[in-house]
């Protein structure tokens, strides 16, 4: 189910402004890759190019190559809608659909895919909520609004919604930045569980989190103020945090800047 991501010489633009340049990296299936770096260095931007959500912003475009198991995501024959069904995403702020119940939130993606069978929907809702470690907390109130849950529960609801469509890859854009430590721990545990089935890429500002959850870490930084962001280095998480090859990485993780 999980797929490999290959990024090669990727430049990302907002209109004429080059936001990120020259990114090349590989994400292995069933692994967790963390993107770290100071604010505004383009790590979220890079993440959003992996499921073509970058194009949703007016003027957003890319040059270079992003491939999922040798399939070019930006080939002209590729439908961005199909890409997003394959590559799921969890956002920084929990964003369950406010007008939908917990059940409908999880089933939303399936319904978009045309699944109508109620029994199958119920099965997937249960499996996805269990997969997101939320089932026990909400099984008695599936028809209540999703917006009534706590922040941490809402974020796990969003993860359940994302995995309900069985994507190949799961992208997470600072999924814990709006959560308290207990909820953060719940999400991190969940990431460890999900790793066995999905390829996961997570953007985080929290270096301890990157060290705890990821197998591979990519450090992004700006060349200079006003210059595009770039990938400084990518390596095994252990190596990045113990013995990085670049001076800038060491300065960043040891707290000397950023």
């Amino acid at each position: 189910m999980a797929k490999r991501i290959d990024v090669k010489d990727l430049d990302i633009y907002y209109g004429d402004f080059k936001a990120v340049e020259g990114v090349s990296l590989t994400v292995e299936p069933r692994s967790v890759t963390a993107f770290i770096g100071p604010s505004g260095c383009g790590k979220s931007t890079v993440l959003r190019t992996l499921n073509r959500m970058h194009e949703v912003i007016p003027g957003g475009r890319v040059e270079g190559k992003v491939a999922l198991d040798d399939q070019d995501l930006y080939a002209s024959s590729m439908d961005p809608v199909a890409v997003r069904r394959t590559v799921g995403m969890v956002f920084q702020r929990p964003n369950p659909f406010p007008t939908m119940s917990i059940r409908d939130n999880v089933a939303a993606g399936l319904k978009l895919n045309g699944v109508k069978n109620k029994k199958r929907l119920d099965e997937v809702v249960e499996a996805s909520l269990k997969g997101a470690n939320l089932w026990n907390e909400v099984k008695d109130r599936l028809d209540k609004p999703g917006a009534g849950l706590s922040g941490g529960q809402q974020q796990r609801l969003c993860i359940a919604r994302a995995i309900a469509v069985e994507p190949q890859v799961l992208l997470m854009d600072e999924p814990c930045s709006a959560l308290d430590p207990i909820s953060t721990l719940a999400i991190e545990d969940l990431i460890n569980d999900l790793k066995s089935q999905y390829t996961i890429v997570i953007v985080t500002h929290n270096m301890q989190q990157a060290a705890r959850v990821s197998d591979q870490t990519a450090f992004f930084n700006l060349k200079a103020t006003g210059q595009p962001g770039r990938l400084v280095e990518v390596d095994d998480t252990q190596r990045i945090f113990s013995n990085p090859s670049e001076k800038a990485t060491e300065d960043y993780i040891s707290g000397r800047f950023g």
Partner: protein
Amino acid sequence: MSSITGRSAIDELPGGDGRPPLEADRASTGRLGDRIFGGLATGSGIFVIALVTLVGVFLIAQAVPSLMNNNVNFLTSREWEPAGAEPRFGIVDLLWATVTTSLIAMVIAVPLGVAVALFITQYAPTWLSKPAAALVDLLAAVPSIVYGFWGLQVAGQYFEPVAKGVDSVLGWLPFFDYTGTPSAKSTLAFAGVILAIMILPIITAISREVFNQVPTAHKEAALALGATKWEMIRTAVLPFGKPGIISAAMLGLGRALGETLAVTILLSGLNASDAFRSTIFNGGATFASKIALAANEFDSAQKTGAYIAAGLVLFILTFIVNAAARVVIDRRKAFTE
């Protein structure tokens, strides 16, 4: 949405994890400025409520004596002879014409207005959306007398083939039977079309406002699940905007029910002896147009009271419509932010 439904989004946002929303009283500090402003706000609220109550009381007080003298049932009679020693007046025809024209206007204007608002907020490129929005708003600035004249002199002639077309397809239904008298431009149906154009800007403007407030996070949530643009609108934009659309429709309906000048100019009156016909291609008079036509003949309290009674029914009708809208909105309250 807030200014229309009378409910601010802040009122319903939970104040963080599970905490109840802030309540006005607890937020008050008891300082002088707070008390003055609180007093002013409360006073304004009471003033509006008092105003509505007084209008109601006035209408009832003026209408009741005439209604007591009425020789036929006010609610079921088609006659309208409010003057003289033995007045006979009932509202069936007026109610029929008012409701029919307004419903026709709603059926046309609500889907169209929502579609225009969706185009402006979701589909149109930036350079087009602002001018397009301004143009639609401009429709609201056209005085209703102009709509009436334009309908009568210009647009009306093009309605003849429309009426014939509807008659040839749906004429077997009693509602769509077009006989040619009165001519198409003087019918309830055409008045409804003109009303639709008049309420279109209200519905578009409010829907547009609500659609613009749909948080990017919700739209991106839908897109990230693999929704197409239309699916995104269906999943994120329309549900979020639903209370606003209902408010917009009700405001439009309120305007349509009460609109006077254009309808007065367009509709051809019926003779008292004409049999009742349930087709939308008939003439008639709405509450408002009937009252307007008689405005210079209010010579006796009895006669005036009869018209005021008609106005009272219009008042109650509008009230019921708004109350119904509120119930619909409140039923889904838990599911709106």
